[in-house]
């Protein structure tokens, strides 16, 4: 993984000093709250319902044991002993004091971490495939390009005061495990005409109040010209994007209103006159960065592992974990292990300081000191020898982290909702907890197979409800919490927005209604059909009936 050199160290150190200066000027009155707010946001500092919230970047989700231990230290020292992983593979602390923030940022800088641009109207933390560098179907590891984009976008002089936030995701395989078409810009590595690395570029995806699926603007931008092309896109939007209405400021609205062809022409006009040579990624710099992401020194192992196979036979709990949370690896004899942060009745994405340290130990001992944060608010040990998976599982179980539900119905993605967030209309966490308890039976969940359920506490859609196979959106009806349900959304290469099935439900009705939806699927699914396949085949109608049947009966 990437390691800081003297320049990277200087940037994060100087950023801490700059922020301390800003905090001092806010305290002295030299900066008003309105002026201070965008500056603190660009350092990941929100003011939530109960306290400040700090969002720390885990660039493209890759980090190591030393960094994880530092995150645990921060949770203990400055917060309440836990953190919360987000869908942008960041970690949030819910209780830090403003006066402690420069010290926290210093602690982070020491381990090559920061909170730069995890919020604000700027280019945000770049995300990627959680299995980058481990997946079998990858044509190229996307992370060096993520790092190049991270550096290029950090404290960008032209693009730090954009109309709204700007999110980029990069993938290196045909299969989309990073939801690139729900991003402002999605990049897919392809082979260019000359056989070199190139990027297929999607633009104008996004969720929120007016969700859009990204459209292709370029089929193969040569890698060396990537930053020039991104500059042209951002420039076109920075100059033409709406600033009069926060809900219409994202690039998706500009792309939709101009149409993709007219927007492409606008981008091409800028591309033609910008200083492309200056922005060309120097080949030696690209090579230097790629060298950090070379595969770890894998051992030459047979495809099958006797200890793994023995454990499968010996322990049905391990067998279940292996079925649900262990993923194939490109290297024979290795696997990626998903560490679920979705225990029954837990807060999705939350992790205690002790658990962080337990995971750090496992990464150090069994996964070449590498950890990943996943879009699904889980963690991944990317490179574990099959021989070691039983030991990893035992240690995870000790730490309360071995819930065998990855990608199953209780692997719920949820935003913090009204329990923490000042923007929310309704709580998300209690609804996710009720659902998790109701569907806790793992036999039942395995029978259902993969189902993605997403929950957002407001239309900003941080829980990505639009692209959940089942989505739940909290709404405020005259001061009461209600929940709107969507069916058929999907974040992958067949990206789709879910259909709203009907009127919203009170909170206690949500979990039973979702269970009826899943039961209906079990009744009508064809052989081998996943939940989302069935929805695509039959449409939302049968599920609407299931959701409202008891309610209709009660009203009849």
């Amino acid at each position, binding site marked *: 993984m990437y390691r800081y050199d003297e320049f990277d160290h200087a940037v994060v150190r100087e950023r801490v000093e700059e922020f301390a200066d800003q905090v001092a000027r806010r305290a002295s009155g030299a900066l008003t709250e309105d002026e201070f707010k965008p500056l603190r946001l660009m350092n990941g500092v929100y003011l939530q319902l109960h306290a400040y919230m700090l969002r720390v970047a885990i660039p493209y989700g890759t980090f190591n044991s030393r960094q994880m231990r530092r995150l645990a230290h921060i949770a203990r020292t400055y917060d309440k002993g836990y953190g919360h992983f987000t869908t942008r593979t960041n970690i949030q602390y819910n209780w830090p004091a403003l006066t402690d923030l420069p010290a926290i940022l210093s602690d982070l800088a020491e381990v090559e971490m920061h909170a730069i641009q995890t919020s604000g109207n700027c280019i945000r933390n770049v995300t990627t495939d959680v299995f980058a560098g481990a997946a079998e179907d990858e044509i190229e590891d996307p992370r060096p390009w993520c790092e190049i984009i991270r550096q290029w976008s950090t404290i960008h002089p032209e693009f730090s*005061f954009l109309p709204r936030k700007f999110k980029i995701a990069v993938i290196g395989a045909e299969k989309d495990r990073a939801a690139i078409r729900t991003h402002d810009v999605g990049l897919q590595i392809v082979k260019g005409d000359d056989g070199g690395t190139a990027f297929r570029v999607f633009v104008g995806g996004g969720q929120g109040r007016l969700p859009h699926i990204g459209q292709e603007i370029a089929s193969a931008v040569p890698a060396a010209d990537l930053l020039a092309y991104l500059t042209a896109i951002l420039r076109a939007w920075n100059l033409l994007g709406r600033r009069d209405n926060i809900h219409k400021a994202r690039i998706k609205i500009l792309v939709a209103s101009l149409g993709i062809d007219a927007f492409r022409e606008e981008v091409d006009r800028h591309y033609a006159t910008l200083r492309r040579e200056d922005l060309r990624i120097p080949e030696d710099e690209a090579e230097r960065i790629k060298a950090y992401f070379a595969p770890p020194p894998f051992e030459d192992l047979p495809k099958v592992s006797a200890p793994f196979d023995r454990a499968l036979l010996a322990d049905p709990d391990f067998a279940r974990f292996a079925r649900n949370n262990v993923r194939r690896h490109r290297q024979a004899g290795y696997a990626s292990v998903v560490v679920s942060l979705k225990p029954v009745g837990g807060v999705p994405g939350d992790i205690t300081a002790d658990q962080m340290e337990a995971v750090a130990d496992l990464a150090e001992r069994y996964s070449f000191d590498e950890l990943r944060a996943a879009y699904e608010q889980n963690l991944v040990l990317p490179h574990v020898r099959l021989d070691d998976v039983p030991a990893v599982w035992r240690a995870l179980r000790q730490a309360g982290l071995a819930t065998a539900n990855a990608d199953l119905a209780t692997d719920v993605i949820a935003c913090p909702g009204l329990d923490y967030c000042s923007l929310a209309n309704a709580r998300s966490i209690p609804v996710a907890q009720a659902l998790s308890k109701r569907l806790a039976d793992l036999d039942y969940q395995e029978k259902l197979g993969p189902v993605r359920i997403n929950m957002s506490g407001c239309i900003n859609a941080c829980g990505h409800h639009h692209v959940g196979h089942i989505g739940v959106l909290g709404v405020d009806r005259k001061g009461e919490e209600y929940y709107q349900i969507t069916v058929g959304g999907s974040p992958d290469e067949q990206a789709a927005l879910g259909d709203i099935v009907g009127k919203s439900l009170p909170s206690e009705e949500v979990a039973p209604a979702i269970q009826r939806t899943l039961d209906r699927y079990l009744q009508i699914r064809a052989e081998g059909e996943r939940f989302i396949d069935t929805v695509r085949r039959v449409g939302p109608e049968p599920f609407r009936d299931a959701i409202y049947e008891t309610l209709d009966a009660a009203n009849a």
Partner: protein
Amino acid sequence: MLQTLEGIQNGLRLSVTTPLEEVEAAAAAEDVLVLEFDAFRDGRGFSLAAVLRERGYRGQLIAAGKVLPDQARHLRRSGFDAVELAPGADRAAWARMDQAFSAAYQPAVDPDPSIWRRRRAAANDRDLDALADRLNRETAGKGAAEIVKAALDPALGLKVGAISSFGAESAVLLDVVAREKADVPVVFLETGQHFLQTLSYRTQLTRALGLTDVRLVTPDAEEKATLDARDDLWKTDADACCDLRKVRPLARATAGFDALITGRKRYQASTRADLRPFEVLDGVLRINPLAEWTGDDVEAWLDARDLPRHPLVEQGYRSIGCWPCTRAVDDGEDARAGRWSGMDKVECGIHLGKRKAA
């Protein structure tokens, strides 16, 4: 630095909300253009300035209106020369924020070299002797794997290769390297006069260790035709033969590398008694992870890792080069006594720095 100007400045004043085409058309005839920010959050002004500069506007660009000291370097790096401040503005804060960062990653309109350019400059102008000293200090007391790891640290930005004869002890070095990074280029000098056993061993070892980039380097065909058309130069001038088949090809093959890993050890020869793990030879960093190893260490490693042995070892060969200049040694002899036996020659020359004029 961004100039800070007090009071209303002369020049054409346009809001940053003005469409680009109008700003461009208006600017063409003006020596001074003042762009007014209606709100500091409205970042259009930065793109307007950058586009104007990139399209060749040479007049003075002044920012005015609602801007914060914290935006000083954004303004400067986007192409503004100055900011118009209200009387009583905190100029010290403007100066401080303008210089808050010693460098920026991305190239922009300002002339300061980006971090990317500085990295390049640093890479082209490195002090290898100091680097070797530092690495020797940092790896003191550490094992071969740590030494290789230190050399491969991407933060150093070195292009690292290894050289190997695929001889009697080569498996150890190659194993250590492969465990750190299997795609390190390994240069093998295909002199054309190796034992057949060496060639088959090369294939066997490459496969066993999973090395993915073993490069065979042959003598230049023209040079060979001139100097040694009949492949018997070794009989008359072994030094010239080594020069043709090893020293010159190696120099060509390693031109692109900043650092070369070798398997040399102090105990092998008196010429190697002062060998350090890191040294500089002809402007290239040499890394000798096994410098401090003894013959017993080598044996123990080969055993412990169950590595394939060179087939000639059991016939008494303990240092293996080209067939004409290598013989087996007896138990009491130095390992390298079988190389250029009977000649006043211990080294082929690839580890000796530039040849002195005779």
